[in-house]
């Protein structure tokens, strides 16, 4: 296992992510500058909050280009919750462009489908295919979600797992070395430990 750099840009539950990485035996550190990102082995982008606020904070710290450059080297990157939505081109939640690392957008859940928004609580994630990121997950693996927007990747092959909430949506995505999880693995017991442990070994 190699060290995981957790991007510290003022959003997201860094303490929880670090606690769980420690539990699965992976070292982690908080990074907040382009130079630190460039020197990282793998990066984890957490995030709780609004899309534009997240992109603005990344830009203010010079991290937008730094993360694109990092990904271009082929090293692994995982976005969690809002951090996953930022990987795409844009979101209905805001007007700012996303990181554009995976083609697609984020759309709001509609109450018209008879659901409460946000989607808050435990739900299943059903793998679309085998992948080292989800190796070892049992069929009834469940994860903790809190979100009002869902990602819609342009390419079906980028969807790694789907979850049903009013509509089926992509709860995990992966395009090459760029990965995302809509749920909070750091708060999803042994199921989340498996995902974070796998990421630390990619």
């Amino acid at each position, binding site marked *: 296992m190699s060290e995981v750099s957790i991007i510290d840009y003022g959003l997201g*539950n*860094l*303490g*929880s992510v*670090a*606690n*769980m990485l*420690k*539990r699965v035996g992976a070292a982690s550190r908080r990074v907040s500058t382009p130079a630190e990102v460039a020197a990282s082995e793998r990066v984890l982008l957490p995030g*709780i*909050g609004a899309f534009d606020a997240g992109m603005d904070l990344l830009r203010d710290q010079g991290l937008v280009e730094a993360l694109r450059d990092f990904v271009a080297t082929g090293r692994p990157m995982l976005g969690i919750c809002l951090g996953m939505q930022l990987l795409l081109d844009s979101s209905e939640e805001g007007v700012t462009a996303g990181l554009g690392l995976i083609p697609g957008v984020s759309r709001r859940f509609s109450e018209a489908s008879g*659901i*409460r928004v*946000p*989607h*808050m*609580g*435990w*739900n299943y994630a059903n793998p679309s295919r085998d992948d080292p990121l989800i190796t070892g997950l049992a069929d*009834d693996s*469940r994860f*903790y*979600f*809190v979100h009002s927007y869902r990602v819609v990747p342009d390419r079906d092959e980028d969807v790694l797992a789907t979850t*049903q*909430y009013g509509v089926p949506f992509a709860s995990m995505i992966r395009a090459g070395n760029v990965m995302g999880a809509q749920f*909070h693995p*750091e*708060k*999803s*017991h*042994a199921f*989340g*430990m498996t995902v974070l442990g796998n990421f630390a070994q990619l």
Partner: protein
Amino acid sequence: MNVFPRVIPVLLVSDGYLVKPVRFAGDKYVGDPINAVRIFNEKQVDELVICDIDASVRGTGVNYGLIEDIASEAFMPVAYGGGITSVADARRITGIGIEKVVLNTVAFTRPESITEISTALGASSTVVSIDAKKRMTGGWDTFIRRASKRVGLTPAEAALRAQELGAGEIIVSSIDREGTFSGYDLKLVESVASAVTVPVVALGGASAFDDFRTALEAGASAVAAGSMFVLNGKHRAVLISYPAPEQVRSLGI
């Protein structure tokens, strides 16, 4: 399909120890809170609520050392309440790795604190806890400071105001039922759940798994219990328990 209803153990802490009162009084010593968190973690509970019940009454503020110990053992969502008075408190708690803050006394002594904290952390991290006691003449009164001070609102009025001020979740607790194993006050749950659109968590009186289903039918989005998960048998011996995952999931069907 809708999201699964959550089943939430509530741990009450006093002076650093896990306690279990009955009707908000006569605290029984139950053990070490960190050990309890560890056991609930092994049992893969949906979520935990941890409240320092006399932090506000004694004015001791937030016990950050305890919160750090809890966060390092809790790999599930955790809500923490007790002694929170400001955005700074709330930010520090969530920064340690706690998902939600629970506001009780301050939500009534300084209601604008709900808005301030909700603006800073988001509504889904801002929970207001409402302690309700039956009136002799029917209906309920809302109390703070461990059931010692009436606030002059019904629980439904208090819940609606909290939602309007930014609360993303309401815990409604029956003072009369706490620790009595006599079932939830379903009419109370119904009165609060029908007043707001945010999720309502029922607390106070649960004695068996079937009580969860009835509280959900009364309008609760999630169910919580203290005594049922930490005490066991005729003599109420300390024994931490939690239903099996498939039983918890069955509530969603």
